[in-house]
């Protein structure tokens, strides 16, 4: 029966490598149209969260239903066969463990506190109902993408530094290290996606079948059990990752995996307390509004909260962004970074553009292409630039700091911002003057002015401004297309 494990290992390896490869290609700026967000599209936690928070299941996220149907058929095969974080933990749990068989049996027993993940799920879903979507915090796909691409890879030579990346990396590493002590601790106790899939696994058709007449209760089936679901006795099908390690472990061949086996007796203790679940919901009803009242950009626009082009209005954006960080990996100039304080507590790790680190490339629409949830709308280049005849998509407006600008304040010629300005005609234009310099000789100066009707807020001017550290021209969010209340100038008169 070892072949079962080999087949599973092949699946795990395939999906892990696919996940890593897609993420690496995305971060490397691969311009091919690869299915970068295919894992995130199939994420039922995001799908359910979005339906509750935003009342919509956008586009490709409908693939999540396929994963639910798979779970209804086979149980939590996603956890045991597909999930990259599950596979990474699976590997980590086998490194340096050196557990004796007896210890393995103990560590793979079901513990009541593994129900914590159910309460986490309840909190996230109630929070979503309140309009604040926080599932991405512990969603294994978002968590892994963030930890790898924003965290660990940044430490590699030539890596792109990400403020706060240490936090993402630390969370991922912590989960892997914990797996050395309790295998798949995250899956067993914390993963809200696993908890959600567990709800569906209770109805699964295929599951572990145990012939009690053959079973000697030796416990060998728990030596390598990943889910701590106790295949002997009252098997907890909602905890089972379907790793099938128990099948070949059984010396009496009493275990199998079959369609519609007879059900084992119910566990002596329920798997989670309804009272605690209701309590969690009540606590969330209190804490959720506190998160929303944390002073992000929801009620009043913030100058430094510059969202990617095509981002939904802030209130809607926070209902749909799962903080997967794919847009941040996709941004070719490295302009998109996790929000630390710009978007309030509930917007932590959502994407913001930091023009000193990168700029919004004029015709580039990659962030919207990879966004799995539609928090950033898919744009065409023609739509984004306004070359289709409409208004260009603006993310903000540039402002000249006349006290720092070389031609304005220092009597020194400079034209970099105007040179870089991508719009046609350019949003940056010059007031030309000839003034006597310090030595009395006339200096011809071209002083930059910003035309707010043309500026899209792309930020390349700020990025390239030679006035270091704090640029003499900088963008703020005013004028962004997504928020009609944050408009700066009047719309052009209708023709």
């Amino acid at each position: 029966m070892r072949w079962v494990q080999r087949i599973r290992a092949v699946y795990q390896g395939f999906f892990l490598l696919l996940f890593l490869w897609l993420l690496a290609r995305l971060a490397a700026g691969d311009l091919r149209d690869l299915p970068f967000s295919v894992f995130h599209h199939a994420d039922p936690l995001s799908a359910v969260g979005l339906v509750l928070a935003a009342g919509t299941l956008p586009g490709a996220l409908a693939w999540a239903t396929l994963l639910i149907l798979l779970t209804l058929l086979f149980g939590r095969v996603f956890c045991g066969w597909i999930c990259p974080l599950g596979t990474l933990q699976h590997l980590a749990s086998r490194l340096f463990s050196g557990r004796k068989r007896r210890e393995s049996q103990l560590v793979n027993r079901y513990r009541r506190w593994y129900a914590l993940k159910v309460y986490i799920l309840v909190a996230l879903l109630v929070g979503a109902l309140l309009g604040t979507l926080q599932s991405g915090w512990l969603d294994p796909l978002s968590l892994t993408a963030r930890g790898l691409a924003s965290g660990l890879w940044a430490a590699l030579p030539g890596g792109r530094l990400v403020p706060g990346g240490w936090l993402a990396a630390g969370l991922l590493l912590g989960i892997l290290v914990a797996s050395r002590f309790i295998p798949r601790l995250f899956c067993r106790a914390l993963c809200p996606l696993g908890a959600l899939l567990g709800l569906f696994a209770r109805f699964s058709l295929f599951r572990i079948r145990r012939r009690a007449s053959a079973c000697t209760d030796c416990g060998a089936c728990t030596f390598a059990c990943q889910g701590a679901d106790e295949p002997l006795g009252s098997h907890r099908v909602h905890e089972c990752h379907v790793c099938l390690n128990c099948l070949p472990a059984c010396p009496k061949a009493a275990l199998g995996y079959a369609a519609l086996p007879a059900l084992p007796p119910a566990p002596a203790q329920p798997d989670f307390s309804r009272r605690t679940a209701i309590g969690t919901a009540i606590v969330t009803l209190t804490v959720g509004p506190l998160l929303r009242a944390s002073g992000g950009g929801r009620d009043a626009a913030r100058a430094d909260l510059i969202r990617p082009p095509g981002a939904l209005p802030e209130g809607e954006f926070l209902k749909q962004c799962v903080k997967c960080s794919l847009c941040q990996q996709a941004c070719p100039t490295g302009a998109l970074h996790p929000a630390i304080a710009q978007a309030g507590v509930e917007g932590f790790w959502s994407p913001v553009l930091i023009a000193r680190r990168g700029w919004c490339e004029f015709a580039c629409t990659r962030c919207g292409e990879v966004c799995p949830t539609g928090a950033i709308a898919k744009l065409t280049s023609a739509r984004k630039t306004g070359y289709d005849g409409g208004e260009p998509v603006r993310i903000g407006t540039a402002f000249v700091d006349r006290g720092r600008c070389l031609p304005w304040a220092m009597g020194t010629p400079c034209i970099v911002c105007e040179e870089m300005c991508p719009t046609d005609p350019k949003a940056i234009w010059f007031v030309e003057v000839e003034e006597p310099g310090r030595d009395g000789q006339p200096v011809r100066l071209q002083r930059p002015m910003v035309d707010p009707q043309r500026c899209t807020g792309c930020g390349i001017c700020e990025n390239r401004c030679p006035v270091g550290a704090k640029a003499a021209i900088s963008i703020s969010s005013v004028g962004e297309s997504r928020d009609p209340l944050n408009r700066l100038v009047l719309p052009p008169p209708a023709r």
Partner: protein
Amino acid sequence: MIDPYETRLSRRELVLRLSSTGLVAGAVGVGALLFHDRRAQAAGLRPIPDWRVPGGGSLPEAAAAHGADPAANLRRAIEAVGGMGRFVKKGEVVVIKPNVGWDRLPEQAANTDPQVVAELVRLCRGAGAKRVVVTDNSCNDPRRCFARSGIAAAASQAGAEIVDGSAAVFVPASVSGYSSGIEVMEAVLLADRVINVPVVKHHSLSRATLGMKNWMGVLGKGRNRLHQSIHRSVAELGAMFRPTLTVMDATRILLANGPQGGSLADVKTVGAVAVGTDALACEVWGAVQMGLQPASLGFITEAAQRGIGRADLALVKDLGSA
């Protein structure tokens, strides 16, 4: 020993388990279909109704009355254009939109005179209005504006509900042109009849604040950018908001330091009220009270070009003093 794990499933249990799994699968599928890309179909802007009533035959388009008692002036002027019964029917919801922009006292003439507002409320109630709502989105603190203008006390005593800017709900509406994207006070959109009750006063940018500019007070956040092109913006507002009646309050007019005023030296007591169904004729009458040439005001010429009304002072029947 009986091994329950080797017993075959009964047909009953087989059907039960298959159907429960099927039911969950079906529910997931139906849910996905129901919610898939749902946002795209939703959205939608609230329409701005046309609150005007059909033409009055031989009745004048507008009438102006003079006298020391503002309430009497209003009654006479409304009588002259057909009486309130022509405009408000039994059971209707009426919104009265005075200018309550500023934390000023009535004698400072920055807001509509409270006696005019209160009398208007009484006339609407007398005509059978189910509810009369007095509202404005003030520039200063709305509670102070409504209190110190005297409008909150006078209007609520006359039987109106006060909805100040702090209590008002703003919703996306089908506003176009320069105001597109700015939200509109929901109470106004829900009204059967709307009466615009501006005060005639000076404005530093547009030179005069009259009736059409008073619609600024039903707009939400973002309205301040309209000052970038004030004449066109005001004319656009006049084209989008078509009131049942315009009541132009010139009990006192503010001639300088507008639109807030302050000094009583800038206030002139005129003691007149004009009422009309032609908003632009009322606008012209207001400008004349300030000693301005109506044709020199950009928003009036723009509004005339848009056909909002007739910019003709002769349309306003002068009822003289009582």
